[in-house]
């Protein structure tokens, strides 16, 4: 539990490539890092009953979600030898092709970074109260189901 402060997680709208590169650039003076493992969730243009998903609108039980994200952080720092961990998730509308989840794990060694990143992504999908409403081509909506 190296870091106790509340971390910014929620981003209004899509997470942009420029946001991601700025996050990477901020780690270039942390010269004890040897490996970054990054996961990006991109909104997929799924086809549901002949209709395409054009966007996902994300909502969350924000207070509980932030507690869960803090718990996920603390478990990751306890289980893996990490230098840094940042998690960003979109709220609101994110169009197909845009990014809604950015998990950024940095460690001295690659195996720790990779294993932690995978574990964190699974926990976010299962444990954090966030919902995606899928907007379809014909203006219908459907609630997203995680696999």
């Amino acid at each position, binding site marked *: 539990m190296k870091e106790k402060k509340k971390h910014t997680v929620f981003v209004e709208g899509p997470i942009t490539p420029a946001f991601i590169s700025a996050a990477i650039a901020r780690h270039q003076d942390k010269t004890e890092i040897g490996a970054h493992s990054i996961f990006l969730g991109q909104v997929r243009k799924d086809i549901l009953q002949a209709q395409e998903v054009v966007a996902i609108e994300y909502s969350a039980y924000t207070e*509980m979600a932030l507690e869960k994200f803090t718990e996920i952080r603390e478990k990751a720092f306890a289980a893996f030898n990490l230098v840094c961990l940042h998690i960003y998730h979109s709220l609101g509308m994110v169009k197909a092709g845009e990014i809604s*989840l950015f998990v950024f794990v940095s460690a001295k060694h690659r195996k720790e970074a990779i294993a932690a990143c995978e574990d964190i992504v699974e926990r976010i999908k299962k444990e954090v109260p966030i919902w995606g409403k899928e907007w379809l081509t014909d203006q219908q909506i459907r609630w997203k189901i995680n696999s």
Partner: protein
Amino acid sequence: MMKINLLAFGQIADITGQANWQLQDIMDTDALIQLLYSQYPALKETEFSLAVNKKLIHSNCVLQQEDTVALLPPFSGG
């Protein structure tokens, strides 16, 4: 008179028609679920979990003044 706060999210809020309301004199979460089922029968067909004061619960839970109970459909973040 004991008051609790209700929150509903996602497809559950679509059913309840409100995202944030209050109820009085509900002893525990089992009693709450029975009341919600009678008010919103469609909930019986819908998967959801309960969080009391931001913690998921897995069995009946006694409620206290100003507790916040959230009705949470399956998570689909990411």
